[in-house]
């Protein structure tokens, strides 16, 4: 269950007590000590109440709920804060005495706070679920070694102030997209944003000739405009459209994730534009290049996993693939994998994917013999081994995957066609490739589309298909 520190502890109880005290204020103003609650904001948006009026309505409903559970507690709160009776009067009328009423009141406020918190949590979960449906399905089940990263990023994203731009940087396969996905989901429940957009920037394909930073920024604005439902009337000129996008993002705090910005020119061209659009909306970018520092960006560089986290990931992955001996292997044995892959999650997963067909000793010895220093060389070796461990059908399908657009993916019918596999062989081949982390499965439960990681495509085009070099 999500943790909401602002709905727990003394500060939360004190906020509820302040809200109760303001019930009878003759000129309470529009504000409320609870105006950070989604419950309050929802009532304000939907019913046109002021935050103060909305808070009173929520308190009133929760007092009714409390009455059904603890009539005495509800009565004390009602008389003290709704009617405005003194402690002495309530103590006298109820026969409890002033001191006892004071204790009942303290406990009742805690109960009331718990009731409001429960409603708030339920509403946040509902809202988060609705927003999550706008995100692409996650490509992971569990993340390892990212707790600190998640904490840091979450606090930056949830902050009502700067930073407005947050970049997650790191090498290919290090888990930038997964981390962005996880923190995005976590922050949705905090009610900080009313909308979330996930924009994936894919180089290549149509428009490749125009693959300039200017084009990237125009494409981003076009995608944002489309997500914001801008009609043609609001798209008269690029400047007018940009201005309209800005005002929509100002009106309604939105979290925009721009995934997979490949080139440093792209990011440096985009940042000033994003800064113009941000506040209170925020942008999260995943990129290989660190921003050049000319625009204020909170930059989090994602490094390799620690040994302990790598061990946990390998064991988890092995269990998921039914490789129980690897799952039960000693930390020292798994450390051998770590030594070779350097704690890169995609590389670790690919190696685990190899382990049910090949001897891990052979795989690791071969990788080690290659004296791999650079990440791309390491991937090259891992992909080579992954390739040889595949069934012929899976190989046939995988070698054809560069024909499928990385940005949109392809459906099963196209995959079957390009591989020329019979229907009964195509699905197991897809399944094998997905299990081995060589094929990415995207889309919804109603429509699945499949694509490959850019690193996989590079390997296939340079080594397997001979498209970018001599085929082996």
């Amino acid at each position: 269950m999500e943790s909401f520190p602002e709905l727990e502890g003394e500060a939360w109880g004190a906020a509820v007590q302040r809200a109760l005290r303001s019930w009878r204020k003759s000129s309470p103003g529009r504000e409320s000590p609870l105006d950070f609650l989604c419950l309050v904001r929802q009532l304000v948006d939907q019913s046109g109440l002021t935050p103060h009026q909305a808070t009173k309505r929520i308190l009133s409903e929760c007092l009714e709920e409390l009455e059904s559970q603890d009539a005495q507690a509800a009565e004390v709160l009602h008389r003290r804060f709704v009617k405005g009776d003194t402690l002495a009067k309530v103590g006298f009328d109820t026969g409890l005495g002033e001191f006892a009423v004071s204790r009942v009141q303290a406990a009742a406020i805690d109960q009331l706070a718990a009731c409001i918190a429960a409603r708030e949590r339920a509403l946040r979960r509902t809202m988060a679920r609705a927003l999550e449906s706008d995100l692409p399905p996650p490509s992971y089940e569990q993340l390892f070694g990212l707790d600190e990263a998640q904490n840091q990023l979450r606090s930056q994203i949830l902050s009502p102030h700067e930073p407005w731009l947050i970049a997650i940087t790191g090498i290919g396969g290090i888990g930038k997209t997964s981390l962005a996905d996880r923190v995005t989901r976590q922050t949705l429940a905090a009610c900080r944003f009313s909308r979330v957009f996930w924009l994936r920037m894919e180089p290549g394909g149509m428009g490749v000739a125009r693959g300039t930073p200017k084009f990237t920024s125009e494409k981003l604005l076009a995608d944002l405009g489309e997500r914001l439902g801008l009609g043609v009337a609001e798209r008269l000129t690029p400047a007018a459209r940009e201005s309209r996008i800005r005002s929509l993002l100002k009106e309604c705090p939105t979290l925009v994730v721009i995934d997979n910005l490949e080139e440093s020119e792209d990011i440096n061209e985009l940042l000033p534009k994003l800064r113009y659009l941000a506040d209170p909306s925020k942008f999260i970018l995943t990129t290989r290049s660190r921003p050049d520092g000319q625009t204020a960006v909170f930059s989090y560089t994602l490094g390799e996993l620690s040994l302990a986290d790598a061990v946990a990931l390998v064991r988890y992955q092995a269990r998921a693939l039914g490789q129980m001996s690897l799952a039960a292997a000693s930390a020292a044995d798994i450390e051998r994998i770590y030594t070779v892959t350097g704690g890169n999650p995609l590389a670790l997963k690919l190696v685990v994917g190899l382990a049910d067909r090949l001897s891990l000793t052979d795989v690791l010895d071969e990788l080690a013999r290659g004296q791999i220093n650079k990440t791309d060389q390491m991937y090259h070796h891992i992909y080579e081994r992954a390739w040889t461990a595949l069934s012929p059908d899976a190989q046939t399908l995988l070698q054809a995957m560069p024909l499928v657009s990385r940005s949109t993916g392809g459906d099963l019918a196209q995959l079957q066609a390009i591989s020329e596999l019979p229907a009964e062989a195509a699905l197991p081949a897809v399944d094998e490739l997905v299990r081995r982390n060589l094929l990415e499965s995207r889309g919804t439960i109603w429509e699945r589309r499949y694509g490959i990681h850019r690193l996989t495509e590079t390997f296939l085009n340079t080594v397997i298909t001979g498209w970018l070099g001599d085929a082996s």
Partner: protein
Amino acid sequence: MNPTPRFVQSIQANLRYWQQRITLADPVDISKLDREKENLYQAVQFGLCVASTQALATKLALDLFDLVDQGGYWQDWIPILEQAVHQTDVVNPLDAAKVRHRLGQLYRRQYRLDQACQEHEAALVIARQLADEFLIAEACLNLGLVYNEQRNYAKAGEMGLAALDGFTRTGADPYWMAHAYTLLGLVEQAFGHWATSQQYLAQTVALWQELVHPLELAKALLMLANTCLYNRQYQEAEPLYLEAEALLAGVHSEHDKIHLLISLGTLYANTRRLLDAEAAFRRADLAYLEETGQKYQLAVLLLNLGDVLLEQGKPEEAEPLLRLSLERFLELEERFNAGNVAGTLAAALFAQGDVAAARHYYAQAIQFLDQFPEMAFARHLRQKFAAALSQT
């Protein structure tokens, strides 16, 4: 590059797969495949790079033309078709001629008229070598459409008649006859022969109705409405525009929708419904025109919007739009419209009290319009701007 036989086989299988999908798709509503445009583009792109799959890739590119054209993906596909032309020229002259026609059409969409003309002329040479009468007629039609854009109406008319004759003699599909009538209707429209233009375009409308092709029918209705508009038959024009608009609402062709909004706005402007005119022009997606490199339509839209703002007494709002429009027409070397914009810009400047700048642009407008003595509308504009200049 040395692709493995297995990968080449996959390229081939991919091309066959998409060819089958295209064949099974409803030709009138090919836009249903629009979401697969990236995969289709990639299929052709890979296919053209390998000798053994070039023919399949070329065929797919040809069959995808409506999707590319309607979607406005002209900029992306021009390099693909250029590559296809280069590869098919020697191997298969018939396909080469077809590809050249499609490439010429994309050039024409981008207002690269000289290049369009070259492609259609090259296709005509091939057609004559092959003694293929139908292909000759198609070349005449396409050349006529380019000449029409170049305002060489006499030659465009000759080509239109030659195309019509060729299509008739070869018993071509009504689809081609409709296009020939369209060209002839447009030429007569330019000459100001309203009745003849309406006759031709009415035939076009009837043919598209018969062929149940909503997009082409909408385009034909739009052209017929334009003839009415230019002939000041405003009451006849409006229902035709609205019928075209209703048809276009159901099809995927942004540039035709923009074309219609420009015409509809012009109708409203001519009937002094200035707010309606402004609203129509503002509904046209200017950003789309910019993104897809449609400079000509962009310049026309800016001119019309600037003009209607000026008419509403907002010269300061009109001026920047007119300057942009003039810039675009000059880039395209479109002197007639450059003259029209320059004169309108002069009026906007004059209304703001900048008499010197206004005189400069009036003079420039007259200089441009003097180059079109045969055009009635050019003469009318020249006279109007000359009178305005004399009053400054």
